[in-house]
């Protein structure tokens, strides 16, 4: 089995036509993997624990719905491996279930684009999960929901809410990179898995 996480999640077999297609972008493939490792197996996790990183990953991937359940299942396994209790895993999944929405939505700066403003839910973790998650994760999930579904609503106030919950500036950069990276990883996996499920296009040659 390949160690490349995107290949594994997308079902790309070594030697398959898509394996060869991905090999045409070797630095993108290697550095998508390096990005994954930098976030989920860092040499030094610094201010954001592995437990927090994997809890956020389960939350973000679960928000992407049933079509991304294979990716979410991977991160649930990783969250458990990182030492999460059954109670914490259940709380993370319950918090994600309460955040289901359809994006992107949100508001533009007032002006001609205001006609495109689209309303949608503003998320806070359900009260029943708040104790299990704790203040830091509750704030992280609210911010992650903002980034996943309505990034154009982001604001200094949203960052201040993270600071108030104990996230340092360095921590916020790491958290933001994690949510944004997962948004990328989920989409590469979706695109590649869709291609992998179809017969290869043999009518044209890439090279």
């Amino acid at each position, binding site marked *: 089995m390949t160690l490349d996480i995107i290949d594994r999640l997308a079902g790309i077999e070594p030697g398959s*036509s*898509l394996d060869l*297609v*991905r090999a*045409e*972008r*070797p*630095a*993108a493939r290697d*550095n*998508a993997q*390096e*990005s994954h490792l*930098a976030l989920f197996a*860092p*040499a030094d996790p610094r201010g954001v624990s592995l437990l927090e990183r994997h809890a956020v990953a389960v939350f973000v991937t679960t*928000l*992407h*719905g*049933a079509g*991304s359940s294979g990716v979410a299942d991977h991160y649930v396994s990783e969250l458990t491996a990182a030492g999460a209790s059954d109670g914490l895993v259940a709380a993370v999944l319950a918090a994600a279930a309460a955040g289901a*929405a*359809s*994006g*992107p939505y949100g508001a533009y*700066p*007032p*002006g001609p*684009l205001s006609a495109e403003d689209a309303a949608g839910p503003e998320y806070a973790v359900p009260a029943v999960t708040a104790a299990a998650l704790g203040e830091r994760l509750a704030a992280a999930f609210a*911010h992650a929901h903002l980034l996943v*579904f309505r*990034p*154009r609503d982001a604001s*200094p106030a*949203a*960052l201040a809410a993270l600071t108030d919950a104990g996230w340092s*500036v360095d921590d*916020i*950069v*790491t958290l*933001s*990179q994690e*949510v*944004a990276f997962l*948004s*990328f990883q989920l*989409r*590469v996996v*979706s*695109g*590649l898995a*869709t*291609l992998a*499920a*179809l017969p*290869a*296009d043999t009518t044209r*040659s*890439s*090279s």
Partner: protein
Amino acid sequence: MTDLSTTPAPDVRPDQDRPVAFTQDALGWEPWLPPLTEDELTERHWSGLVDRSRAKSEYFMLLARDPDILGARTRTDKDIFYNTRTGLPRAERELAATAASRFNGCIFCASVHSRFASHFSKRQDDVQRLLDEGVGADLGERWNAIVAAAVALTATPIAFGEEHVHRLRAAGLDDLEIVDVVNGAAFFNWANRLMLSLGEPVHEHER
């Protein structure tokens, strides 16, 4: 009673300094959190910046607070967009990036990558229609297929499916070129979320 003279100054710029429409003009970007300064940089930070010239960018100097993920992200970005020995022309990778940015609502990202799309395609008016009319603009079938695929990938939950692959193949794209569309759109789901949530665009003449 509120004494207006004691109202604290807002920590964001006045609205008139902020772009309120999509544009191909060059924009600036200002962080909401403090970037590192050059005298704070270690070799690990310089490595994360990849190109030393990126130390002049407040965006990259903020992201340098987590240098490992920044470096891997930058190298992923470069291969997805600059490795054009095979696969999709650069113009159409930039089109996918622009479509994702337009749909998510990232005025800054859309300005940079619409300029690239125009430069490499020489189709500035079509690119402007994508910015002005949105992702439903009629740009001819090949570009429409690329935009539709980028938009479906950008939706949350992800809406990309076999129908998008079939439409791209019918428009003449082989599987490597389709992976280039997927990578380009997916990468901007990473970039948009950072640019939108860690700062804001400003008119370039302010700088």
